[in-house]
Structures are given as C-alpha cells and as structure tokens.
C-alpha cells in the first residue's frame, strides 16, 4: 500500500451538471501497467485529466505521489502525458525537435535555456519513436501518425516515472503501434515505469498490462486482465450492443451499431 502512486477515493466528476464519473475508487502502485478500457464517452479521458489536476472532482479525493494533484510542484516533472488529440495549429512555426523540447519546459526551469542534458533527452526520445530523421521538419508538415509520435516523444523526453497515454496508437499504423507497445512493455519491465494506458484495443491489452480498469461512468471492473476481460465483464462495460467471441484467452469484440451515443 505504501507504494501507491495514484489514489482515487470515491471520486465523482461532472461537466456543468452532467456527471461523467461517479464514485471511482482506484489505486495505482509504482510499477503498475494499468489498461483503461471503456466505450466512447465513458470518462476515460476525464479520469486522466482528473489525475493530472486539470479537472476538479466535485466529490472524493485524488492523490498523486501522496499529494493533491494541483499542488504537485516539482513532482509534476515525474509525470508524462500524451493527450488523445490536440487541436494544434499545423501552421505554427516550430520544428519537431522543439515540440519535443517543450515537454521539458518545467524541468529546464524559469528563465533558463535548454542545456546539453536536455538536447540529449530530446534526441533519445525522438529515437524511441523513430523520428530522429524528421527532427528538423516543421511539426505541421508531418502525417497524423508522425505527429502523434512527436507527442509521445514529448512525454518521453521528460523521462517520467509515470506515463499516462490516452489512445496513443489511435493514428499509428499496425507496425508502429506494435513496436510501440513492445517498447512500452520492455521499458515498463526494465525501468519500473508506471503506466496508465487508455485504449480501445481489447486484443492488445491482456498481452501487456498488469491490471485493467473498465469504465462506464462507474468503475465497472478492476483487476487482473484475465479476470476482468471475460464475456460478462466486457458486456457490462460496453452494454448490449457488443458481441464477443473468444479466441483462446484473447477476447475479440465486434460492436454492433448503436442507436444512441453517450448517455
């Protein structure tokens, strides 16, 4: 218990008067690899934003590194975040390597310019996402998947202890996605990185993660992938519109057309 990095205690979050997360209790320990699943609009992004202190819960407590998420101070440098999609200005005059460097803004410190260590960290991060050749390219002149890799590199350049990824592979081709997951898996194993991964890829999750949280406004299920990702579990999460069929232990899912979207 002492190793718990992120603690949520009966947390509820609402936008205006619409409740999107209700009574979520969850703890993430150092070294965990938590997969977060759930249908569109189930509050996955909101959960990450709440942990980051960007969205305030109206009830319950969140603690990150034992502190209130909005009072993390220096500890913020230990958290990397890859947003789901950013509305970034594609005509913005900035090179790929400078976007990655921006991830280290707070680590470099107020009034200082990046030093040798910072440039090296940026180089390493770019290498990890196979973008070192495009380092000088203007950010907006990349493909969507390449841009997503830049944002991953931006989080990695911080050399974080906790990495939160919101559907990081949504725009990646199968090859890059696969090798990215493999990389995540090895880094997680070797460096003891704590990972929170939001994904819709039900087939990938059980191969890599150590725990699964299924969201649908409530925390529908939380535990080991093999106990959570059962037919009943997925059914409870995705509702009646989804059909499941199993190939061995990896569930595959087909989502039938829904009549109404998020509720």
């Amino acid at each position, binding site marked *: 218990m002492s190793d718990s990095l992120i603690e949520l205690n009966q947390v509820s979050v609402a936008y205006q008067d619409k409740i999107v997360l209700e009574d979520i209790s969850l703890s993430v320990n150092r070294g965990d690899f938590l997969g977060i699943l759930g249908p569109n609009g189930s509050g996955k992004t909101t959960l990450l934003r709440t942990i980051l202190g960007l969205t305030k819960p109206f009830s319950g407590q969140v603690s990150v590194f034992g502190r209130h998420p909005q009072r993390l101070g220096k500890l913020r440098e230990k958290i990397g975040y890859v947003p789901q999609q950013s509305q970034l200005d594609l005509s913005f005059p*900035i090179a790929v390597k400078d976007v990655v460097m921006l991830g280290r803004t707070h680590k470099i410190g107020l009034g200082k310019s990046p030093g040798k260590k910072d440039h090296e960290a940026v180089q390493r991060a770019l290498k990890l996402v196979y973008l070192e050749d495009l380092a000088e390219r203007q950010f907006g002149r990349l493909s969507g998947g390449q841009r997503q890799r830049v944002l991953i590199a931006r989080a990695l350049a911080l050399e974080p202890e906790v990495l939160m990824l919101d559907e990081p592979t949504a725009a990646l081709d199968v*090859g890059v996605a696969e090798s990215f997951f493999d990389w995540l898996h090895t880094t997680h194993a070797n460096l003891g990185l704590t990972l929170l991964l939001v994904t819709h890829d039900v087939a990938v999750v059980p191969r890599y993660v150590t725990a699964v949280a299924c969201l649908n406004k409530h925390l529908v299920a939380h535990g080991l992938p093999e106990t959570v990702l059962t037919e009943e579990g997925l059914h409870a999460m995705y509702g009646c519109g989804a059909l499941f069929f199993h190939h061995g232990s990896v569930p595959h899912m087909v989502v039938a057309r829904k009549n109404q979207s998020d509720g």
Partner: protein
Amino acid sequence: MLELLQFTFMQRALIAATLTGAVCAVIGVYVVLRGMSFIGAGISHASFGGVALGFFLRINPFHTAVVFCLLVAWLIGWVSERQRLREDAAVGIFFASTMAFGVLLVGLLKGVQVDLFGYLFGNILAISSTELLSMVALALVVFTVIVFFYKELLLLTFDAEMAAVIGLSVRGFNFIFLTLLALTIVLSIKAVGIVLVSALLVIPAASAAQLTDRFRNMMIVSVVFGVVSCWVGLFLSAVLDIASGATIVLTATFFFFISMLISPQRKKMRMRIGKLQKQSPEEYQESNPY
C-alpha cells in the same frame, strides 16, 4: 536625408520608431500565432476612452490611457474566461463601449482645444523627451518579460493544454500577456495612433510568418520588418510632409506583399507538387520507417 537627423525632434522620432517597431513586432508574433489580432484592435480603440478621460480630467492622457488599456485588457481576459462568451464577443463589447465613452467625454469638452487627431493617427515627430523616456521604460519591461518567459510563452501559444498539464498557470500567463499587449499598444499610440496600432501589431508578424518556419526566426524577421517599416515610414513622412502613422502602416503593408511574393512556402509547394509527380521513393520511406 541624413541631415534630418541633426534635429533633436528627428532623433527622438527615430528612437521612438525603433522602439515601437521592435516591441510591436515581438508582441505581434504572439498576437498573430494566437489569433488575437481582434483583441489588439479592441484594446487600442479602448485607449481612445482613456485619452479622452485624460483630457477631461486635465491630466496627462498618456497616463490615463495606460490605466484604461490595462483595465480593458484584463476585463476582456476575465470576461472571456467565462466560457459562455467567446473572446471576440468580449472584445466586441469593450471595443464599442469604450469608444462611446470617449466620444461622450470629448463632446463634454466643448470649447477646449485638444490634439485628438495626434492621438488618433499618431504624430511621431512630436514626441517629447518625457514621453520617449516612458516609452523606453515600457519597452524594457516588455522585452524583459518576453525573454525571461520565452519557453513558457511559446508553450502557452503552441499548446495551452500542455502548459496546464505541466503546471503552468495558463490564467496567470494570459494575464501577463494581456498586460504586455496593453502596454505595447499604449507605447505605440504616439507613433502610429490609436486607429493604426493594431496594424503594426499584425502586419510585421504576418510578413515574418510567410518567410520562416521557426518561432525564433519569425521573431527576428518580424522585428526587422517592424523596425524597418517604422524607419522608412518616418523618413518618408518627414521628407514628403505626410502623416507618419499612415506612412508607417502602408510601408509595413508593402513589405507584407513583398514577403508573400517571395514566401518559400509557395516555392516549396511548387517543388513538392513536382516531386510527388515523380513519386520519389525517399518520400515514401520517410513516412514509413519499417
């Protein structure tokens, strides 16, 4: 032309032109990249209310304009933070109401002789040494803040959400930025006038955007455009005896069209189209490293 520089008023005008051109160009880069040019126009027109208030109360209009512009800038920031109202609506409200306030006060000044025209359209040749001194001070403040918060302002401009994630106070920095913007506008009123300041905020930065794809370069090129436009405008207006503010803005506009014509973006586009037709294999590999 150089003998003009023997006159003190011309020396002062030259320093003022340099300061105005440089500060507007630097702040203008953020204004253009954040799509805030309407706010620039809003705050500068608000300064009309401030100037009129100064005349009305018989104190230095420059001082009342500083206070007035700061208040309006912060009000715009505060109102547009409430998400029900978009920034441009907030600007629209203050744009008109502060002008109306100014017009009202000027109407009450019946019979009093005031140099409203100088404030509306600028008179760079009539800058006093006290005014010049306050311009230097304001410019120093603006440059210091920009240099000190360079990374943070860049991140905020490029990706405000990420700025919040790493714990920067987006609100605090917006407030700082609006303050700098208001100071810059007041600083430039003497040179180009209330009506034309916003042009000097937008045009040099927009010209620079045509020619560069790096933030730092955009900043440098914008300053070059801004300062050169102010110099050229100043000398043309002195030699031809025409309005300084208008000449400066028209010179900047001329440079904008030049930069559009020589923009490498357009050249690159043409080259790219050529390349794609040939289907170069490197181009394909680049997008797929495996």
